[in-house]
């Protein structure tokens, strides 16, 4: 167990140092911070506004970092060396996910301060945000497995970014086109709905269904990651 932690941390530190020097990635992740600072100054204080920035952070930080970390290992032929080392696949993935997780939490926290976001019930909001982070890290892993280079990952993240950041605007058209009601079950809309309910003074009993949907999305995506991983490894 001790060795497992040591190897996971070795991969985490290596990826951290590597990412800090990677201008591609480090400039992308400040994007939500700029957005948050802008919103904070112009006085946006609606739940939709806060969660637009949060959802953006998820796609740009959690999903993108994870995807580019995995894609780069494949692109630079370093993944094979890692796979042949004593580190197991679980340890490799844990090391990488840890970095995406920590960066996401930091960026979320700073943007919340920038926007002067004060949730009515921090415990629920934090739980929901953490579950969402896991969802987006799983999404990023999936993208990383499918793409072959950082370039490809950067392109593949764009539709994800647009879809998950701006899908909440679909609610405007929902009365007109009832088919869009399905979108309400998307994890990002669930998060916004949960945020709104908490702001309206709702407690845990009012939002458990939202949390449950978020957890099921995360679980489903994790299964997809495992299936995709096995498929890719057999292909090689």
């Amino acid at each position, binding site marked *: 167990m001790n060795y497992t932690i040591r190897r996971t941390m070795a991969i985490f530190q290596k990826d951290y140092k590597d990412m800090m020097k990677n201008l591609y990635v480090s400039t992308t992740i400040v994007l939500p911070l700029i957005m948050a600072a802008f919103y904070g100054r112009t006085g946006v204080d609606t739940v939709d506004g806060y969660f637009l920035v949060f959802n953006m952070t998820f796609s740009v930080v959690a999903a993108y970092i994870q995807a580019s970390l995995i894609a780069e290992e494949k692109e*630079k*032929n370093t993944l*094979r060396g890692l796979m042949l080392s*004593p580190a197991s696949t679980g340890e490799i993935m844990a090391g990488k996910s840890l970095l995406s997780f920590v960066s996401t939490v930091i960026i979320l926290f700073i943007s919340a301060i920038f926007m002067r976001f004060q949730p009515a019930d921090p415990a629920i909001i934090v739980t929901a945000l953490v579950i969402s982070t896991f969802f987006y890290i799983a999404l990023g892993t999936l993208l990383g497995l499918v793409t072959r280079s950082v370039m490809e990952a950067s392109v593949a993240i764009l539709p994800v970014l647009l879809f998950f950041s701006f899908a909440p605007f679909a609610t405007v058209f929902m009365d007109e086109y009832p088919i869009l009601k399905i979108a309400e079950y998307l994890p990002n809309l669930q998060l916004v709905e949960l945020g709104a309910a908490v702001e309206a003074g709702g407690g845990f009993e009012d939002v458990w269904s939202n949390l449950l949907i978020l957890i099921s999305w995360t679980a489903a995506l994790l299964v997809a990651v495992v299936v995709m991983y096995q498929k890719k490894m057999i292909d090689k």
Partner: protein
Amino acid sequence: MLKISNVEKNIQHAVVFPSINLELKLGETAAIHSSTNVRTVLLELLSASKPLSGGSIMINNEQVSASNKVYFNQAAFLFLNDGLYERLTIKEHLAFYQKLYGANETVEEILNLIQLNEKKRLRVSALTFSEKKRLLFARILFQKPKAVILEEPDQNVDLEAKKILSRLIRMLTDDNSCVLVLTGNMESALMVTKRVYRLDESGLHALEVTEEKEEETLKEQNEEIQQVQPVKFEKIPTKVNDKIILFNPPEIDYIESSEGQSNVHVKGQIYPCMFTLNDLEQRLIPFGFFRCHRSYIVNLQKVREVITWTRNSYSLILDEAGKSSIPLSKTKMTELKEMLGLK
């Protein structure tokens, strides 16, 4: 100990290599000289990325398999196209290897071994190709494996790196690891070991490597004779377009004369030769060639079958892919029988 027993590989209809056996004890070094295709296939088998067609590969009694972590802890691979984390500094990179393998060696010790001490603060991307190769080799030093498998370790590297690598390989064998070098370059195979094999579709063959020192003493002995005798030229020149191609006599299957032009047949290819058949016969008799017909000279080593059609007509069937048949005249048949000791 690395043990390859009865391993064979066929891809579709083609034999990549037939059943081969190789055993390397701890502290031994061997090199396998082969084509790129064969080398890639063998590496895939050794690193368990492709399943075996038959036989087994064992390192210290651990069977190769993608899920067998013990096998991979004891085996270290250096692939030709292995990559590095280009943005890390050399020191950071080595520190990563050290933690990953939980090694006892310090980063400083390894830095001294690969002689990159003065460059330790540089980024990996600033290194030359040869220096990167040395850094890649550092991974093996941290791992301390039982078996080391190197793919083209010194391809395209500079003299400095070659020296460092060959010293490190010797250090590994002194530490009781066995080293297997897979290469397409005979020179780099001979640089690390005298135990060289050739692997191709006909199997694994040990090459006889004579010690240079022995040759030197022999040379001294023969010096006087050599001064008198001119060096004997033993290649057969052929001409293709503007190029002159030289063949070793044993490579030649047979020579045929047609319309006054002698054609040398090598592995199904025809090369026109500027000598007459009579000249060639004089030159080639010492190499076991035989004038079997007015217009044919055959390499007797390559003859598989003698077919008697009628009392007066015979053919020789050669042992090569095309199974060419060559006429054998009646008078020559008696001569051949005498040579074979049949009469």
